[in-house]
Structures are given as C-alpha cells and as structure tokens.
C-alpha cells in the first residue's frame, strides 16, 4: 500500500471535521491576539523583544495540543472508528505515519502563518519603545516557533495514541503546560529547562537565558515528541484495536 493515498485520507479526515478546523483557527487567533496584547504593555522594558512579540505562543500551544490530541482521539470514541480505519489500512505503522504526517503538515503551515502574524502584531505593539530583534533572530523565532507548535501538537498526538483518549491527554498536558511548567518550573531550576515546553520555547528568545540554546532547546522538545510518538506507535502495533 502506498503512502500518498493514506496521507490524503488522513488530510481529508482533518479537513472534514469542523471542530478540528476551529482548533486551528484558535491557534492563529489566540497566539496573534496575545502577542499583540503582551507587546502593548510589556512587563518590563528590559524584556526580550522577540520573546514578547511571540509570547502568544505560550497560550496558542494549548490550541496546538488540543488539535493534536483531538485529531487522534476522534478515532477512539464510542464505536471505535479506529477499527474501520485499520480495516482500510491494516498496516498500522503506515497508517500512524500518515496520520502523524498529516497532523504535522497542517499544524506547521498554520503555525508559520500564525508566528509571522504574531511577530508583526507584536512588533507593531512594541513600536519604537524597544530595540527590535534582528532579521536573523526574527526568522529563527518565526520558523522555530512554528516548529515548536508542530512538535507540541505531535507530542499530544503521540500521547493520545498511547492513552487512546483525548480527555486523558488534555487533562495531562494542559495543566502541565499552563501550571506545572510555570510554577514548579522556577523551583526546579535548570531541570525545568528540559521540560518539553520550556526547552522548545528557547527558540522564541533573541538571547536564550536558560541552560539550552535555541536549537538545542528545540531538539530537546523533539526528543519528547519522538518518545510520545514511539510510545503511541508501540501501543497501536502491539495491542488489539
């Protein structure tokens, strides 16, 4: 069985469900809006202007995570749609690969547009008050931010495949992203820099202040994502559907 038609099928699955499209729109709207708001009233003048301009990403990632987990958990609701999917594509590795790729492609495109819009909205809000980021930093922030959001969506997709539930995935990830990382993160110090969300967000800073550089941070997030996807794939391949 070739990959392309299976990928197309998974892409159609995303395109034909309104709630998934709404989540993608929320990703764009929330990230851009909060970047603009944060830039109008920066907490302190010395703040990293690139990070301030892209700060909506921290909230927008909730939508990315929701998208990743919903795209997978739609297969595991009552009636177990996954059985029908695996009847059409019995090679589970191929099926999971195509689903992951479709989620990644969709989120990456939306996140690139989102990060770019957020950057412009943020810079407009900051005005001339601060030294703007350099072009190279901006490109890295936008591209890296989009990759970061994609990795978080895939992290959620992997976890949802492992747990076979969107509710379970979101109840683990959302508190983790919104609370644990913020509150406990500071107490843990350097260890917190290796959390999936904190590590990847280094790429949003003109001058990362943590242990990890921008690309190293993104690589750490990628490792978390890979681990979640592998765990999901393991359960999918090993267990009865």
């Amino acid at each position, binding site marked *: *069985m070739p990959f392309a*038609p*299976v990928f*197309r*099928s998974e892409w*159609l*699955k995303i395109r*034909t*469900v*309104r*709630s998934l499209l709404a989540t993608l729109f929320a990703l764009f709207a929330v990230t851009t809006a909060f970047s603009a708001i944060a830039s109008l009233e920066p907490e302190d003048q010395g703040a990293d202007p690139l990070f301030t301009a892209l700060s909506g990403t921290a909230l927008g990632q909730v939508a990315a995570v929701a998208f990743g987990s919903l795209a997978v958990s*739609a297969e595991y*609701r*009552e*009636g*177990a*749609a996954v*059985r*029908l999917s*695996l*009847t*059409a*594509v*019995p*090679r589970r590795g191929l099926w999971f690969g195509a689903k992951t790729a479709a989620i990644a492609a969709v989120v990456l495109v939306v996140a690139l547009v989102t990060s770019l819009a957020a950057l412009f909205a943020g810079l407009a809000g900051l005005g001339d008050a601060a030294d703007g980021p350099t072009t190279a930093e901006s490109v890295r922030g936008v591209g890296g931010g989009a990759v970061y959001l994609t990795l978080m969506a895939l992290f959620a997709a992997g976890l949802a495949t492992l747990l076979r539930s969107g509710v379970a995935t979101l109840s683990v990830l959302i508190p983790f992203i919104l609370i644990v990382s913020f509150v406990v993160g500071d107490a843990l110090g350097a260890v917190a820099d290796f959390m999936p969300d904190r590590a990847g967000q280094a790429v949003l800073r003109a001058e990362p202040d943590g242990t990890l550089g921008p690309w190293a941070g993104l690589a750490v997030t990628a490792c978390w994502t890979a681990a979640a996807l592998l765990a999901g794939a393991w359960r999918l391949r090993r267990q*009865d*559907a």
Partner: protein
Amino acid sequence: MTSIDVRDLTKEYGTRRAVDDLTFTVPPGRVTGFLGPNGAGKSTTMRLVLGLDRPTSGSARLGGRPYASLPQPLRTVGALLDADAALGSRTGRDHLRVLAATHRIPDRRVDEVLEETGLTPAARRRVRTYSLGMRQRLGIAAALLGDPEVLMLDEPSNGLDPEGIVWIRGLLRRLADEGRAVLVSSHLMNETASFADHLVVLGRGRLLADTPMREFIDARVRPAVRVRTSDSDALENALARHGHQAVHHPEGHWTVPDARVDDIGRLASAEGVPLLELTADEGTLEQAYLDLTAADTEFTARPQEA
C-alpha cells in the same frame, strides 16, 4: 473467487476464551449465516479475520492470505462491524470519501454506494443527525465501497425498519448470486432463516454446527402435521386407530408429530373426518437452534460480549 478460511482459531482475553479452536470456511456464492447468542464470539471472530485483534493461536485467511497482507484490502473484503464507527461531526459522504481515499476509489463510486443504500438524500448531512437505521446503511455503503469479493457484516439489520430489512435480504441474496462470499452474523433466528443458505453456529466460542440451513433444521426438528377439524372426537379416534398421538392445542388445532400431510389427508378422508386445515408443520430454525443448545444449559447465563 475468494473465501474466508478460519483454521484452529483461538482467542483468549485474559483467562476467558472468546473463540475456541474454531475451524470453518465461508465459500463464494452463498450467504453464510453466523449464528449464536450474544457473547458467543461472532464479533471477535470477525475482528480476528480483519486482523484487528491478534489470535492467541490459529489463523484466519482470505484467499490464502492474512488480511494485513492484502494489497488493497477494501477491494477484497468489505466489512461492517459497528454502525457507530462514523464520526458524528462528518457528513455521510465525507465519511465514505475518507475511506475511499486510502484506495484511490473515485468520488463517483462513493455516490454510487450512497445511491445503492438509499442515502443519497442524506449524503451531505452530518452522521450525528442519522437514525440508527441510516448509520447501519452507511456502514453497509462503506462495506460495498471497494466492490469486494468477500462481505462480512455484523448484525447488519440492527436498527433497520421493516422496509430496510426486506432491502438487506435482497442485497445479501444478490451479492451471493454475483459469486461473492457473504458472512452475516445475527442472533435472530427468523431473520437468519430468511436469507442464509448455510449456517455456522457458535456457542461460547466453539463451533456447534457448520451445515446447510435446511439440513440443520431437518436433522433437529421432526416434521409434523397441523390439522384443524370441526369434529375433534372423530379426528382423535381416527388418528389413535392408526397409531398417531395427536396433540390438541388450546387455540383449536391439532399437531400430529412424525407424520406427513399425504398420510393424514388420506386417513382423514377414509375415516370421513371433516378437515378445515391441513398443513405441514416444517421445523423452524428457531426450533432447531433451541434443540441444539438445549443440552448446553449455561448458554442463557452467558454475560454479554464487551
């Protein structure tokens, strides 16, 4: 043409044996009724055939190959497992397009199966708004999508209205007449009797019978004759003189076991007993089935399959 070959198939969930050393074949060109109470292992067997569950031992093959190794599975096997497999927020047509895309089946074929299952008017409505009968039809449409040689339908008439039940009977007949192998599970006897040529009967995961339906019934239910008369005493006496033990039913008719219509008719005529009705009381599938399972008292106490 392709057949389903189940060999020594066993599936254990923990300590429970859902399917126990099952062997049978579903050949092309006939409708095989897959019969058994809830929890007998019918659905599990179907999931094993489709490679969704892994057998503890044994194998299930389609035309000699395991399902997962079929190059284009939907063009070989069409299956209906669960009417709720379609996502409520998608339209019926999109649900089928998603499946069709995996095999590069064109939208034209999607519209064909929608037409065939009578769903065209509802095609662009969300599945959430469908009745159970419509979701069942959508599941059947999905099974037909790849024009498969083998059809495997789990309780397809579930939720169908009387018109739908007549429709599915005709559909199953036609599919078998076109030379396809058709396996249809049901726990309803009368319904199965209306479409099946052959029976595979399961009980607690084990094979209880694998025979043509007519033989199954004839071997288990003794033929009888149903008689109604205006002169009960005369009939009873006449029958008794010829060694028949007739049973009188409160509704007014008599049943003569182990008899044939020809004999009773001649006898009544010779004895001058007036007959109002004389029919052969052929065994029903239900009677045969109950006879088969009567020995197995645990049957009725089995918990429902998850």
